[in-house]
């Protein structure tokens, strides 16, 4: 019994019949129903600044024939509204005839529990921790000029109704705990940000006073930056630390390996399948099946179970990430990468947890091998132009390397490179593979979805560092 039709003049049966009637002459499509709620509790400037709650309910009805996607969404789950949407889809596709593909793989695997993080911790106890965070950081000394800390929690139930009454369901918890510190010394101000999260209850990330580690890390980054000098400008060697710096992989090659851009031949990678795109020893996977991770999904937003997709194996391009539409048009199968931000958005092939697997070198060996370069440990975010292949990402904690030794911290700078060639410049892959702390959100075509990244330390022979010091 579906809870989506509880206060509606529709029931599952009537909805299924409208769905089948609409989609029978199409190649694919579904009715996607979503009920989500989210909360934000923010402490800032010594006070609880924002306590907000949001609930959202609606459907997205999609029909696809050939390359054409017709989509209609509404918050009004009623017979009248759904029939209007159905008519809208039929109008768009009226001149086309398709054959509905009923095949959808099944799996019993689950990568997170059906829990509600918002209800499972009281508002009082969330506020109490935020106040403790504030006091804890401010007790670290009089350099502290600003502290923000927040809880973001989400609970999303989805139901997918395909033609012939095939129904798929998933319930997804997601939380994030963030701390931001601004330190000030002699008029100079610097920020440090750190956070943790994933698909569990808040307490899993806070217990054993783990919240103090998050505070310490944010404080430490701000303190490092207070001592930073101008970053260098120009091409040089770059050592990336393990974990979160893997947003390099996400930007440099991840987006370029999404199926839609390759089907449309607008990705710099579209004609490189089977070719060498990275140094030997570089293996990159996109994995939706890691337990409790931010980018993990039991099923994707089309109902396909997620998987671990090998994108690059020992430097050779092996697979793209696919949703059902692009897989069909490229004669392959969905990799369970079809995702959407909400019922208001169309499905696109997207990343889940993108990871470079470990190698044999130690971080120490990498740094020792560099005469002049930078060591980048923490990043803000990145962006890519998938057509030219050029990508950037912004350091938030980095140091210069001089004669094989780590030197002074340097100011945040943008690093720029070329996606299809950057991984050929990777000359050492570390033995210290690490997952990110669970804070990433990826944007594409105006849609944000939670993702993860992971990598060991790596040495890149040549990248352009966007500092001001010539």
């Amino acid at each position, binding site marked *: 019994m579906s809870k989506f039709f509880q206060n509606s003049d529709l029931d599952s049966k009537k909805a299924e019949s409208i769905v089948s009637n609409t989609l029978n002459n199409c190649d694919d499509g579904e009715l996607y129903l979503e009920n989500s709620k989210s909360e934000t509790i923010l402490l800032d400037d010594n006070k609880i600044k924002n306590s907000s*709650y949001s609930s959202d309910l609606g459907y997205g009805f999609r029909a696809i024939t050939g390359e054409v996607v017709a989509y209609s969404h509404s918050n009004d789950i009623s017979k009248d509204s759904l029939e209007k949407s159905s008519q809208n889809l039929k109008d768009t596709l009226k001149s086309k005839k398709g054959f509905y593909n009923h095949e959808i793989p099944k799996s019993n695997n689950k990568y997170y529990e059906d829990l509600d993080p918002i209800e499972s911790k009281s508002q009082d106890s969330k506020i109490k921790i935020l106040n403790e965070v504030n006091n804890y950081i401010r007790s670290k000394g009089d350099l502290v000029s600003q502290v923000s800390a927040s809880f973001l929690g989400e609970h999303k139930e989805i139901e997918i109704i395909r033609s012939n009454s095939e129904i798929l369901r998933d319930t997804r918890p997601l939380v994030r705990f963030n701390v931001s510190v601004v330190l000030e010394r002699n008029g100079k101000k610097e920020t440090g940000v750190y956070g943790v999260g994933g698909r569990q209850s808040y307490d899993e990330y806070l217990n054993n006073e783990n919240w103090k580690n998050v505070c310490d890390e944010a404080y430490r980054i701000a303190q490092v930056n207070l001592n930073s000098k101008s970053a260098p400008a120009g091409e040089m060697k770059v050592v990336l630390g393990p974990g979160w710096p893997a947003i390099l992989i996400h930007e440099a090659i991840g987006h370029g390996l999404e199926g839609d851009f390759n089907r449309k031949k607008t990705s710099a990678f579209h004609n490189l399948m089977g070719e060498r795109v990275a140094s030997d020893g570089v293996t990159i996977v996109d994995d939706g099946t890691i337990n409790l991770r931010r980018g993990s999904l039991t099923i994707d937003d089309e109902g396909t179970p997620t998987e671990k997709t090998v994108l690059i194996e020992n430097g050779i391009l092996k697979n793209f990430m696919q949703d059902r539409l692009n897989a069909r048009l490229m004669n392959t199968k969905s990799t369970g990468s079809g995702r959407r931000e909400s019922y208001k958005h169309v499905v696109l092939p997207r990343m889940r947890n993108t990871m470079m697997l470990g190698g044999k070198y130690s971080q120490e060996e990498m740094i020792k091998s560099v005469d002049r370069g930078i060591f980048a440990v923490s990043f803000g975010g990145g962006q890519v132009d998938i057509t030219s292949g050029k990508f950037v990402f912004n350091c938030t904690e980095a140091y210069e390397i001089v004669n094989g030794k780590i030197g002074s911290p340097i100011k945040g700078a*943008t690093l*720029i490179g070329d996606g299809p060639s950057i991984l050929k410049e990777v000359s050492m892959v570390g033995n210290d593979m690490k997952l990110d702390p669970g804070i990433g959100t990826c944007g594409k075509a105006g849609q944000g979805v939670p993702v993860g990244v992971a990598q060991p330390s790596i040495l890149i022979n040549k990248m352009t560092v966007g500092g001001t010091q010539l």
Partner: protein
Amino acid sequence: MVKDREYLNKVASHTIEYSKKLGATDVNVQVIHSISETVNLRNKNLDESNRSDSFAIGITTYIDKKKSTISSSNLSNDNIKTLIERCIEITKNTPEDEFNSLPEIELMAKDSKDLNLYDENHVPNNKKIEILNEVEEAAYLQKNITNTETDFTENKSNFVLGNSNGFMKGYETSNFNISCVAVAKKDNQMERDYDFTSKRHISDLANPSDIGKNAALNAVKKLDPKKIKSEKIGIIFDKKISKGILAVLSSAISAASIARGTSFLKDKIEKEIFSKTINIFDDPKIEKGLGSRNFDSEGVETQKLKLVENGILKSYLIDTYYGKKLNLKSNGRSGGSTNLFFENGLTPYNDLLKSNGKNLYITETIGHGSNLVTGDYSVGANGFMVENGEIVYPVSEITIAGNFNDIFKNITLADDLEFKYSTNAPTLLIEGMVVAGR
């Protein structure tokens, strides 16, 4: 059709009444209904049609100095009741904050001028497809174009904003948007660029074939780029990105970042932050303006502000909460700037290109490299090398970096200001930035 004002007023009034009944001392509510229809074409074929019909309600309840906010897309009576009950519950459990309150009654918008923000005309999807075909035909007339993607979006919304001090106002708005992305390919190298037109009224849209032509020409011009060596060089920002300078200013002078002490412009009020020739306005009352509004998101009356006069910072963008914290009155900028623009410059565009003999003309930046706490700026970029006023070759895979305190003081404006976005700037030259390349 979007829901009429009467329906939205009714939802808003019921919300205020029920919240007060449950113990709210003050209430603010916003109800929005919008319908949006988009058609996408790719390589002259229909790719996607998308219809969106959405409601949103946002409720803020106050119990004396306690406050919390709730939002939802479900406007059924039952759901709204549940939401209000939950909002009141959360409010009770939220600590007091002395600055929480509705705006002063005398600051609220009174007689609203019709800003002509709504065009009731509707473009059916088949007509949209016809127009997009025209865009793509024009794009494909250019050599080396291998891919085009275009879309036409029509959006209609209606909203009301109400509060428990008796304020209840709203209006309809519309937006029509045509855009084109073109990919140019030569040998094994590809470049992408775009153009668009976005207006409140259909009749004001740019010529569709110009959009296609510009997108294609922009992409073709980028083919065969070079990476230049690192150097200090004059940087010219094309109009596509020069408005970004104003976006940085707008964030840095919001009362929130000033009050929190996290802006590089803190303590700069009445001080010279730009060179003496620079004047910057924020005008909410421009007819058909993309950023126009009669009142801000709290219902406070908006007026034209001169934010920067002869290079001197004259005003912050102030909302009620942070205004109280700074001991200033709200100037109707809860939700940020409206139609923000530089007063037009005096230097003809061609003269600007010729200055210094050699400049780097930037048409696109990538990445989020603006640090508003320190003013440090470092982003990826591409564009063209300009020598003696002529474009000599395209440049890519470089970064540009500096600090906004210096950047602001070293800006020269061209005389080509136009109103294409809600925030607008003419082409401008910045001296003293560093390019990192080879």
